[in-house]
């Protein structure tokens, strides 16, 4: 069956009359694999729409732009009732269960041809997405500038809010 849902030849968007591009400001606060994907997917999408994008990586979210840790983000089966195969907490606490859950999710991502976190970060930097590293988190967690990926801006909450003040969409993830 063929269904035509849109055909008007002059259906140009109404976004083009805007003086400045739309802007997406996000706080990425989670350092798990499943916590890293949503802000990175939204960043890639917004950049594709011609939006300006900035992500403030704070607390555990800082691991997403950590030179070594961003390739080793994990999924926690412990206290995670949403696992596709429900894992009782007692079992989820056993050694190897986090690695198993992580391997499982990475397998799904591969099967779905979804880019890895590192590739999404490359896409973000190529599209000019601002990557803010929370300086307070760096101080609290003992993270040095050299621990972070290149292309990251070290900033406090003030600089991020200055960016976010002109945002059309703001998300805390």
């Amino acid at each position, binding site marked *: *069956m063929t269904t*035509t849902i849109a055909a008007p030849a002059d259906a*140009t*968007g109404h*976004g*083009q009359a805007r003086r400045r591009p739309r802007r997406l400001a996000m706080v990425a606060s989670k350092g798990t694999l499943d916590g890293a994907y949503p802000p990175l*997917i939204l960043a*890639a*999408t917004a950049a594709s729409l011609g939006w300006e994008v900035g992500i403030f990586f704070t607390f555990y979210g800082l691991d997403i732009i950590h030179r070594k840790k961003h390739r080793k983000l994990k999924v926690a089966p412990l206290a995670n009732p949403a696992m596709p195969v429900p894992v009782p907490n007692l079992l989820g606490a056993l050694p190897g269960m986090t690695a198993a859950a992580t391997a499982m999710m990475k397998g799904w991502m591969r099967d779905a041809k979804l880019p890895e976190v590192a590739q999404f970060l490359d896409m973000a930097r190529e599209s000019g997405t601002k990557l803010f590293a929370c300086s307070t988190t760096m101080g609290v967690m003992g993270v040095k500038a050299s621990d972070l990926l290149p292309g990251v801006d070290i900033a406090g909450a003030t600089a991020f809010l200055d960016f976010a003040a002109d945002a059309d969409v703001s998300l805390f993830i």
Partner: protein
Amino acid sequence: MIDIRWDAELDCTGLLCPLPVYRTSQAIARLEAGQVLRIECTDPGSLADFPAFARQRGHALLAAQDQGGRQVFLIRKEAA
């Protein structure tokens, strides 16, 4: 839809959001204003995403069809 000619094609079958829109954005950047891109997808979300993409970027969505699990779009690049 058959009588609309296109200048370039993009195969996004087997890809999930955000890749179809991401690749479409890159492909349209290589076109001249007025040229038409044909995109084929299998992500059911694309039926909602491509009209939104065209609206956001100010391009013209000439056609959007769902052909039994395959979505086909024709987008004409508008001048920036």
